[in-house]
């Protein structure tokens, strides 16, 4: 399959990339890893007059800890995230997910920035970023930051303006006694999730949940945050009974559509089961008994 014709641009700097976006307006699209965009162009599900390839823009590929914040450059490849010692040792929610994204060859090209900026509800990292309370740095005109939970507006529709590039993801370092988990059900390697749940929580001194965030992948047109379920858990000990109730509440929030991955009923049930598993895992990692 051959994509419809387009013009390719390879800016050497971020400024140059932003100028190209401004110049070509709605006809321009940023090319990051290309693992979603190129198949869409080939299948002719999308078409753009101009691709702005940011693969050689310097300074967008890093994972660093700075003053209580984890900063991930938008061009960080999934394979780099997967091999990162910081991620493995301190961010189990991200470490859970990366090996489950697409396949190893795709992860050699696919980027974290592309995964979160694309606005595909099947992508795994948006729900994770919501659970982690991450913010995205958007460049183009005046630099601004948008919280992950405010970023997703609809199917492939985000707060990112056509003239902007998402350059960095900022994650607040979880306090002591925190744990996170991502649990995903998929039919086969390379497929999107039937359902998946992202959980990040912190326990208080008495072992009760002090704070908690839950978000679901492929449970609607955008990642779905189950705020009621998370709020229910706050102040309670995460045991089988409270976890079961929170998972039930989270599944109520999910609005999947029926497709070859299953019926609405099946997917909602899987959202419940996976949320319970993710809560349990996150609580164990936080040091719950």
């Amino acid at each position, binding site marked *: 399959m051959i994509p419809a014709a387009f*013009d*390719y641009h390879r800016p050497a700097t971020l400024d140059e990339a932003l100028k190209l976006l401004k110049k070509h307006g709605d006809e321009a699209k940023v090319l990051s890893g*290309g*693992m979603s965009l190129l*198949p869409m162009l080939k299948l002719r599900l999308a078409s753009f007059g101009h691709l702005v390839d940011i693969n050689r823009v310097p300074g967008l590929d890093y994972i660093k800890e700075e003053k209580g914040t984890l900063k991930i450059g938008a061009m960080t490849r999934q394979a780099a995230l997967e091999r990162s010692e910081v991620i493995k040792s301190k961010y189990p929610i991200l470490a859970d997910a990366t090996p489950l994204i697409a396949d190893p*060859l795709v992860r050699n090209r696919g980027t974290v920035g592309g995964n979160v900026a694309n606005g595909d509800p099947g992508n795994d990292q948006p729900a994770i970023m919501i659970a982690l309370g991450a913010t995205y740095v958007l460049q183009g005109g005046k630099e601004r930051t948008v919280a992950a939970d405010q970023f997703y507006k609809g199917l492939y529709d985000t707060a990112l303006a056509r003239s902007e590039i998402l350059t960095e993801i900022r994650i607040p370092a979880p306090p002591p006694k925190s744990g996170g988990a991502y649990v995903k059900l998929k039919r086969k390697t*390379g497929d999107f999730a039937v359902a998946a749940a992202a959980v990040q929580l912190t326990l208080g001194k008495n072992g009760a949940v002090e704070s908690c965030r839950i978000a679901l992948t492929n449970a609607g047109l955008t990642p779905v945050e189950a705020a009621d379920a998370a709020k229910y858990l706050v102040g309670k000990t995460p045991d089988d009974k409270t976890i079961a109730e929170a998972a039930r509440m989270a599944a109520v929030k999910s609005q999947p559509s029926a497709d070859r991955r299953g019926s609405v009923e099946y997917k909602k049930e899987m959202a419940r089961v996976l949320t319970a598993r993710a809560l349990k895992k996150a609580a164990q990692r936080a040091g719950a008994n």
Partner: protein
Amino acid sequence: MAMHKIKVTVNGAAREAEVESRLLLVHLLRETFGMTGTHVGCDTSHCGACTVHLDGNPVKSCTVLAVQADGAQVTTVEGLEQGGKLHPVQEGFTEKHGLQCGFCTPGMLMTTSALLARNKNPSEQEIREAIAGNLCRCTGYVNIVKAVQYAAEKMR
């Protein structure tokens, strides 16, 4: 139509071409350079038959633009053999019957040669995870795993 002059090093040899923006790397290799060792399988980034090394990393060349390889080092299955001697993974696939129809084999060889460059002693689990993006419909993977283990042994 936008055309781009590109320079790519393929299997150690400097090559030049003038390509359309939308030309895919796999088509540059097969059609422009006439190197048909790299296969087009699913053409949708699933099967891995088109796997090549781009600056040392295995990638699916049906999902990379040719112009993106400008200035890069590309290694294809034709480049695995060195001085008339098969790469250990090629020898392993031969010795352990790691293929039947052979369609997935170029991709399997590129993925597993990259694995062994990074990990001299992969476990069976690590081998299976590494080839998760390469589909084989003949072997059931058992002999492919054995072929990679053979190659790993050979390279130690």
